[in-house]
């Protein structure tokens, strides 16, 4: 694989800059909340600035190549190195993580969830950012693993400290599930290392040599990785931590979880599992596709049964990630392009939906759908934004969600050579039914919450008309970029496809084109 090593400091700076912010905050022992917030804000702005500069320097004509590559000694004894780089697949997610973190920080300036402690809260946010960005640039399996795990603890605390009623249960469940997956994943990585001659953990090296491993062993190694990544995605039947984690997490936690953390799993499939173990991927593809469509239908039915708005959005994530996994399971460039697009789109849209849910909770003090209603008359701006996101989420053409969902379904019509067409066409039909269900639960949700008359009597004692202020300035600043991105990517999807496609083609070269 070709590498472009120019500007090899860029990625390290972009990834570790948030840690500088964390250290700064630690060094201000008696700092006022205000200065902590300022440090967090400036750190995340600076991080995004580095990210944008990276995108500016990125050679889009060679998006299939690893760029800004750095390869330094790290743990030479076990032949693992500090090997980083971005290509067309990594770059959008790398940038997305920076954008989302900045927006979450802006949103949090005004909304540090109870019980306060802004210093700890912002520190964890920034540590999370380092972990997420690092996962997307790591080109060495051990480095990938370290970053992949680095996000665990901050998220554990974010849910457990700043979450809702059942936060402790939800945080432990989240942690145990993910840790179980990572333990098996690590064993799989090690097996891969030894089966390729114990030479290197570098992903490009393993892509070159992984194909020579015997098929049966490949299938077992793939199984270990599958569990690790599938828990994170989450795929049915490993999804049960997600509704709890999402419902209990503070708004900021839900947004990051939905927008970035879930993508670590799907990204792992595309970056690691498929290209390194092509034979096993072919064997596993029908099962992955099957679980994906089960996830689509199960998630949608789960949504229809929810009485809590946030839990409903969480279940919709299971369904949406099902579309992403369906696209991946076809092993075609069409499907994987769709999946990558779906990841970004889902990040923007569902992140936005969780923001809205957070603001609803803040204003109405409840997320029970039956106690909500008439949002459009009380807070027209919030109501319209919510409507916009719901439409985007159900895959309305012209908005970003469409370009993740529709091509993913279409790609199942003709999966890669060697996969059973009939099976995948059945998947296609079921997935298409899933979109109908998606429209049903989202429109129904919207109808119940935004239409009708306000049910003021039901908020326990709060005479809420006075408190209900429409979208605040902090919210506008945090949300506008997301809304614009959803619209722009919906109208000009090629902006993203153009970057993704060359890299996806390279990834798929392991499958013979």
């Amino acid at each position, binding site marked *: 694989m070709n590498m472009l090593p120019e500007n090899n400091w860029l990625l390290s700076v972009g990834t570790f800059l948030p840690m500088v912010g964390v250290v700064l905050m630690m060094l201000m022992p008696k700092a006022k909340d205000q200065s902590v917030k300022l440090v967090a804000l400036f750190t995340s702005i600076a991080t995004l600035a580095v990210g944008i500069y990276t995108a500016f320097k990125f050679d889009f004509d060679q998006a299939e190549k690893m760029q800004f590559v750095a390869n330094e000694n790290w*743990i030479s004894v*076990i032949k693992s190195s500090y090997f980083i780089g971005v290509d067309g697949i990594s770059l959008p997610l790398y940038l997305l993580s920076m954008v989302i973190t900045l927006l979450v920080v802006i949103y949090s300036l005004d909304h540090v969830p109870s019980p306060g402690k802004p210093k700890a809260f912002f520190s964890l946010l920034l540590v999370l950012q380092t972990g997420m960005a690092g996962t997307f640039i790591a080109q060495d399996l051990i480095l990938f693993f370290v970053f992949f795990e680095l996000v665990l603890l901050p998220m554990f605390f974010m849910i457990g400290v700043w979450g809702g009623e059942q936060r402790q249960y939800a945080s432990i469940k989240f942690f145990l599930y993910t840790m179980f997956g990572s333990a098996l994943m690590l*064993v799989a990585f090690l097996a891969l290392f030894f089966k390729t001659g114990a030479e290197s953990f570098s992903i490009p090296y393993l892509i070159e040599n992984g194909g020579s491993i015997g098929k049966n062993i490949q299938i077992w190694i793939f199984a270990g990785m599958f569990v690790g990544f599938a828990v994170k995605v989450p795929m049915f039947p490993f999804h049960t931590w997600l509704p709890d984690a999402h419902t209990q997490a503070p708004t900021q936690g839900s947004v990051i979880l939905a927008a970035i953390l879930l993508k670590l799993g799907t990204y792992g499939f595309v970056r690691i599992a498929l290209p390194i173990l092509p034979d096993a991927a072919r064997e596993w593809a029908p099962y992955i596709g099957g679980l994906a469509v089960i996830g689509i239908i199960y998630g949608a039915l789960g949504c229809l049964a929810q009485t809590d708005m946030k839990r409903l959005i969480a279940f919709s994530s299971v369904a949406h990630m099902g579309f992403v996994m369906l696209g991946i399971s076809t092993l075609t460039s069409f499907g994987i392009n769709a999946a990558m697009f779906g990841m970004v789109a889902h990040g923007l849209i569902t992140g936005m939906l969780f923001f809205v849910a957070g603001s609803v909770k803040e204003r109405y003090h409840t997320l029970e759908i039956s106690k909500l209603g008439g949002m459009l008359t009380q807070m027209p701006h919030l109501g319209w934004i919510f409507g916009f996101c719901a439409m985007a989420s159900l895959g309305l053409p012209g908005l970003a969600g469409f370009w993740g969902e529709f091509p993913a379904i279409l790609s199942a019509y003709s999966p890669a050579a060697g996969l059973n067409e009939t099976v995948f066409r059945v998947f296609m039909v079921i997935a298409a039914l899933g979109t109908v269900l998606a429209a049903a639960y989202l429109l129904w949700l919207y109808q119940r919450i935004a239409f009708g008359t306000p049910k003021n009597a039901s908020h326990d004692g709060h005479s809420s008309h006075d408190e209900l202020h429409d979208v605040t300035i902090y919210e506008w600043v945090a949300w506008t970029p997301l809304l614009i991105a959803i619209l722009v990517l919906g109208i000009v999807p090629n902006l993203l496809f153009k970057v993704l496609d060359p890299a996806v083609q390279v990834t798929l070269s392991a499958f013979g084109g």
Partner: protein
Amino acid sequence: MLSGAELQILNVLAAQWVAPTIDYHGLAPELVLAGGLCLVLILDLFIDDRKKWLLSVISSFTLLAAMIPILTLALSDVQVRSMFDGRYVVDNFSLVMKGVFLLSGYVVVLLSSSHVEEGEYWRGEYWFLLLTSLLGMLMMTSSRDLVSIFVALEFLSIPAYMLAAWRKRDERSNEAGIKYFVLGVFASAVMLYGMSLLYGATNSTLLVDIAAKITVEGEFSAIHALAVVFVVVGFAFKVSAVPFHTWAPDTYEGAPTPVTAFLSVASKAAGFVALVVLIYTAFPLAQDVWQPFIWVLSALTMTAGNVLALKQHNIVRMIAYSSISQGGFVLMPLAVAGMPNSGDSALRSVVLYMIVYAATNLGVFAVILAVSRKTRSGEISSFGGLFSYAPALGVLMTLFMASLAGIPPLGGWIAKFVAFQSLLQSQTSWGYTLALVGAVNSVIAFGYYGNVMREIWMRPVPDGDTTLIKTPGSLAIALAITSAATLIFGVLPGVGLHFADLAEIAGAISR
């Protein structure tokens, strides 16, 4: 009266006896330590009660001074210094482990000083016993003969029995000491029996000689197998491997907390040192005997330790079970140490694990000591809400717990990783299955490590008492050292691995 024949034998022996040449440079760390402990013992008799704090200062300086010859030895051109016909060897393995023991000892002194000062017990004796036990550990790293191993073992154990019972008027402390003593002596007896069988079967006490005689391929009888197993069992007691662990929780809970820190780190590591030396130099060719045995020990130890730790309410008891379970992880790579591919990496893994574990576990005890100064309680719930009134201690305890659980980027992960790597490197089903057991166990372990984090971050403060915790200076230094080490080993794993990789046992049969 001696008969003529006997006289003749004595004469022959006398003629052959030549005073051994002693490499004083090689023995310098032990000599410094021995000098220091004599100084402490003598000064204790003469100095005034109010000035007894001097003794802790002298002890800590002794330990640091003993580090100097270790550095000069490491830098010297002579790689291996062999004394007394190869019965006492200073090689890289022993140097690395001596460094670990001295530095852990130094941190234990830091942990103890305020505890000992406030305890109104026999201060001088405390330091004397601690240094004596450490001297035994240093000797253990160099012993390459059954007799010197046994002497070193008793040298390090007997002061430790007394330290465990150091709080004379406290029933629990007495119980701790007695349990530790009785089971420790029992273990010594079992081991001694195994050693006598070894001597009987091989006609030598020198490990290298034994290695040549005990091979699975050659003449191999039940006596050989029995001898190997008995010796391993003896050390299994020392490292509190299940099912020989029963003394550990009671002893750990009853002993004064700094002593518990010492037992769970240094004393345990000494057991592993002896086990490793025996496996690599005395029984390398009897792997068919000890490999399955250690496989079972390791799987049992980590599983039982974990499951029992889940149920504990007392923090020290929980750490006791946690350290049992961690011991299972140290044993893990030894289960494949006799395989052709993984001998070197297993040794590296054991050494690295002991280094990282020492740093992290001592840190845990530093936090426990600091917090219990305020709460006066050993319950895990006494850590409730720690983050809200003592954020620094809360964050540090979180780091240590995460490291023990093996979460990157803290030291524990690389130790676990290298252990797994060694298992998989063997490319045998023994290795693969044990790796799976280990993987599942590292998830279970988070159950109780996570519980402590949960108390610290998410639970309310018990009684709402949020008086600030005053951390004495020595504890603060100990915390700084251990947390820095835990972080550095995790972020730059090359540092720890460098030392672990250096640690070669001279004369080990390499594969």
